[in-house]
């Protein structure tokens, strides 16, 4: 174990630690992975954790790590599920939550300069008090930070209208793996887009300048429902194409998810009988009236049901409570992937068929994030208390990814646990993967920043070993099939 050097201890005081107790909390994110597997594949507990307050301190930590060849893992909200902010090789965790606050707000230009550890809730609260708000945000609004969401995919509520977060960012301050503090713009080299979705592997973001917007004049929410999903996805595509302008957000829930929530007392009747599409409009009252008429036309045209306004509002307010399903099923396995909207219905049918064959109920929801793409989350129940069953069940994840990829989609983020799919499902075109790797080599030739993520699997997660493991788990799962079916899912 590496000791905290005296000079850094003096410099950072109570803002650094090498206590085993404190460090242990930085060795995981929201996903549950059986501890023996984590220990087999990684060294997740850092040797030390620093809580810097400025870019200069981040630079100092990175320079130290470079000299000692220690891995550096940036972390803020810690709300990822694929290990993006969890060390693979111990080393140093930089906890960025101390870099918090708004540095400047230019109302006229609708632009804000913000520190990366500011949560979306905090930034939005700051702006709302001044008559403005953020353009888009994640459903993990209260914990996800500006820097963290940018380093992930940056797609969520409002992305349909404003695109992924990277489209809203005009410049960044980044501490590069060399320790250099650099301001990057959309056109500099490296540019802003290099750091978006890079999961902290190219630099530590220490400042973000992004576009915001004035508060909408009016908002209105609709909840469309149908016993079959086809018409809803047609309506979603129409809305995404601008036929119900000004749509701000589109959110789909599968019937199985609504049914689970309703039977658990977490959603009101009659939601459990339907697939639903929540349509949220923001604009002028006149625009909303016009859009409302278009939505009613879609309801008639596609044979849908329009649910009560109060249900629509409740669905909107629940946008931050997607995780409440855990009250009913505390051991959930999940796949988050991008799926072409044109293929969403087919994806849903295939995944639900897969669930029926496997004896598990697949619970799916999706944000429509552009004209062509939906960010889809499929959840299914397992049992963390039974690591053997849990691992066998996890083999279904690969089959869900395979389905999504075959339909033109792919995993939303890579992190650590999705690295084998880079090869298994050919997530990126080979040229694209090569380009990403070149960026990493250019900026971080020592490979100290967040190693083991994004660009390729570690040896024990190599496609061959991983593939064999998946096949074995899938095979063994067959023997659990009957027991799972008896759990009352069907």
């Amino acid at each position, binding site marked *: 174990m590496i000791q905290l050097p005296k000079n850094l201890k003096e410099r950072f005081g109570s803002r650094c630690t090498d206590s085993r107790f404190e460090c242990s909390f930085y060795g995981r994110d929201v996903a549950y992975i059986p*501890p023996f597997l984590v220990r087999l594949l990684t060294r997740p507990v850092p040797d030390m954790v620093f809580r810097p307050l400025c870019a200069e301190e981040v630079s100092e930590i990175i320079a130290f790590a470079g000299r000692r060849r220690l891995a550096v893992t940036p972390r803020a909200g810690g709300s990822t599920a694929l290990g993006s902010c969890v060390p693979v090789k111990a080393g140093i965790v930089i906890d960025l939550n101390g870099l918090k606050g708004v540095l400047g707000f230019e109302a006229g230009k609708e632009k804000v300069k913000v520190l990366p550890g500011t949560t979306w*809730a905090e930034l939005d609260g700051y702006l709302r008090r001044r008559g403005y708000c953020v353009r888009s945000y994640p459903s993990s609004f*209260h914990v996800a930070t500006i820097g963290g969401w940018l380093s992930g995919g940056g797609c969520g509520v409002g992305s349909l209208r404003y695109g992924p977060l990277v489209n809203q960012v005009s410049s960044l301050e980044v501490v590069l793996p060399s320790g250099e503090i650099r301001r990057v713009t959309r056109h500099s080299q490296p540019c802003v887009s290099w750091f978006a979705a890079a999961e902290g592997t190219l630099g530590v973001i220490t400042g973000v300048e992004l576009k915001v917007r004035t508060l909408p004049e009016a908002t209105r929410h609709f909840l469309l429902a149908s016993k079959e999903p086809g018409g809803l996805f047609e309506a979603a595509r129409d809305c995404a194409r601008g036929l119900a302008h000004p749509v701000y957000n589109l959110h789909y829930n599968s019937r199985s998810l609504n049914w689970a929530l309703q039977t658990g007392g977490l959603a009101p009747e009659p939601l459990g009988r339907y697939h639903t599409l929540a349509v949220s409009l923001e604009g002028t009252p006149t625009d909303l009236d016009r859009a409302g008429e278009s939505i009613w036309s879609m309801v008639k045209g596609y044979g849908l049901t329009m649910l009560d306004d109060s249900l629509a509002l409740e669905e909107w307010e629940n946008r*931050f409570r997607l995780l409440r399903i855990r009250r009913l099923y*505390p051991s959930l396995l999940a796949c988050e992937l991008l799926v072409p909207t044109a293929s969403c219905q087919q994806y849903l049918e295939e995944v639900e068929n897969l669930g029926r064959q496997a004896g598990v109920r697949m619970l799916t929801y999706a944000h429509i994030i552009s004209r062509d793409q939906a960010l889809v989350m499929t959840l299914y129940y397992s049992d963390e208390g039974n690591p053997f069953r849990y691992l066998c069940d996890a083999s279904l994840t690969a089959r869900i990814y395979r389905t999504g990829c075959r339909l033109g989609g792919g995993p939303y983020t890579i992190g650590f646990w999705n690295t084998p799919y880079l090869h298994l499902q050919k997530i990126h075109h080979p040229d694209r993967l090569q380009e990403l790797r070149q960026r990493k080599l250019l900026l971080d030739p020592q490979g100290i920043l967040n190693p083991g993520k994004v660009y390729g699997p570690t040896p024990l997660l190599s496609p061959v070993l991983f593939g064999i493991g998946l096949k074995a788990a899938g095979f063994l799962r067959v023997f659990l099939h009957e027991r799972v079916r008896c759990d009352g899912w069907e």
Partner: protein
Amino acid sequence: MVGNKALFQGLEAEVRACATCGSCRSACPVYSEIGWESAAPRGKITMAKRILVDRQKGVLSEQYVKRVFQCTLCGGCAVVCPVQIDTRELLRGLRRYLEKRGRNPRVFDELSARIRQNRNISGQANEGRLDWAEDLEEPVGIVSTGAPGFQDDPWETSRVGYFVGCVASFYPMVADIPVSTVSVLQQAGIGVVVLGAEEWCCGFPLLAAGRDEEVLPGMEHNLAKIRELGLKTLVTGCPSCRDTFNYHYPRVLGKPLGFEVWHITEYFSHLVSSGRLDLSGVQEVDEVVTYHDPCDLGRRSGIYEAPRKVLEGIPEVTLVEMEDNREHALCCGGGGNLQVTEPQLAERIAEGRVDEALKTGATVLATACQQCVQVLSEAARRKKARIRVMDMSQLLWEGLGEAVPGGR
């Protein structure tokens, strides 16, 4: 819990349900001060999962016990929890778990002994519960007939019991809160009956310490005395006493109390709206007031508007809101027995809340809880802040023409 409809189905069930998403961190005053993941509700629950669900050996360390008690039980985390966990109950459950294993801080033994011996948290003789009443112009009715100051209740139809609470009864800094409360009630023509030495600690500090069983004697005694009086309405200025009467007692009893328990601000608001308390003719209180929502009154009981309505009814009072208000209000630091286990941490949290009040430009920081008044007053004094910390009753009584001792 209102708003987010926080739920609690048992300690282990809630620990399992926690998604460890970390939303709770943003609302946690302790995490905000300490900064380490272990101090956030997520950290505490993560470790609880290792202990209760994964049955890991050797993880129940002294450091962890310390963290579990570094919590004001303010419930801010429950408001933002996407899994709708009543995190306050969860953390109380963790304290009960530790208590059963003899791992709780021993400082609570002293607290328990004080309450057992003196029937209040102060350590003073319970007979002193009515010392504050010496400053009243009109006496109040007391349970024990024959005691000085007792008079027949002339307002039989308007009689309320006033449960003063330990802090207001024994701590000189807030002694004029009950004086103001009773004076306002009397001004509105309400007969006030107090239990005097027969008022025992409601048990809230013991609940916060995870010592639920020790609450029973006080509960049984208080309920018996209140029922003897045939009271239909009990008011209290202490949101925690209200919480204990309205949530904990019925849960233990398995049935309703048989009388209503109101917080004094609810009652004042009721008196104003029913015309019994006329604020239109009162002396102008030319102050800019910001209101601090006590955690047990706001988040726990959903009472946000009643105190504001009363404040707005006082002529010339300008009400300004702090950035974090209502269900998102920051804690004063005085809850969860944090003052007992980590007084300096409680002080830092209180100073943060005073800073937020100062940013509004208010001249008065009003609240509706004697514990908040005490903690925030101390913080304002340490910071040499030019702001008066006052209970609603004090502000109201000042408006009704009575200068509050120790004011400006």
